[in-house]
């Protein structure tokens, strides 16, 4: 698994053509709301095994 594959999958999921241009300062100040973090943690804990169809 490479960084490029993660980027491709992320762009596909968010239906974007390229990564958004965001300024760094805003990123520093952005706190992750509790409900978003709770959703993230729940997904992390419950990520299910999907049967891959092989190659």
């Amino acid at each position, binding site marked *: 698994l490479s960084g490029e594959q993660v980027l491709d999958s*992320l762009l596909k999921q968010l239906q974007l053509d390229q990564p958004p241009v965001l300024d760094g300062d805003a990123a520093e100040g952005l706190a992750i709301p509790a409900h978003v973090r709770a959703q993230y943690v729940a997904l992390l804990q419950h990520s299910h095994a999907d049967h891959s169809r*092989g190659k």
Partner: protein
Amino acid sequence: RFSQNFREVAGRFLVSEASTHLLVFGMEQRLPPNSELVQAVLRLFQEPLPRAALRRHERPTPRSARARVTIEWLRVRDDGSNRTALIDSRLVSIHESGWKAFDVTEAVNFWQQLSRPRQPLLLQVSVQREHLGPGASGAHRLVRFGAQGARGEPQLELHTLDLKDYGAQGNCDPEAPVTEGTRCCRQETYLDLQGMTWAENWVLEPPGFLTYECVGSCLQPPEALTFKWPFLGPRQCIASETASLPMIVRMKEGGRTRAQVVSLPNMRVQKCSCASDGALVPRGLEP
């Protein structure tokens, strides 16, 4: 067949006079533990045509006359209702006799997915006329198969591979380097997203994550078996179970930015297995 993209289409009975047999196979202890089912073959013995029956038939039956034999897996649900799934179907010559083979691998796959205690494997064998329509002959009714418990009784062959030899090993030994001789295993690596320019200011969580790769090789069946199963490609080490990867990213909306959760499918390898191209992709059992 064997495609997960097509679902059986319910239809109405136009002609309902197929002769149907129900075969029951006790399956417990039949499949060795820790083994992979490669193929299951149902063999039915088609009885020779009794001359007298042929003479009694309302009109001559041409040498080329055929009947359609269909095998369905029958499942008796908890509420007592039956569900069937088409497994195999082919034409047989009415005038021929002898063993006829049908591939019922998928039926055994379905049976393996049943919750315990499991009912026996129920296979419904239907013999239908080759063509429908006013001119169709009823010669298919002359087709007889040896019944269970009698001479020429149906045979169910189960062909398996012992995963102790032909399977993967769990996770790779982190201490041992992966070489050509390493048996298929899951190798752990770490993907650091913080070092990626595209992730800067965009990906808030995770900073990086454990990722796995299936490495190593698989033992190939001996030539005698590959000859028996020409439809199977070489065994390869593949990701047989994967999991999604949740992330938190920054999204711009109007003049503001907010945090959003997104889940990337099939991003993390949960299990590596040895599998062949051409092998049956098990259909999931409907609830």
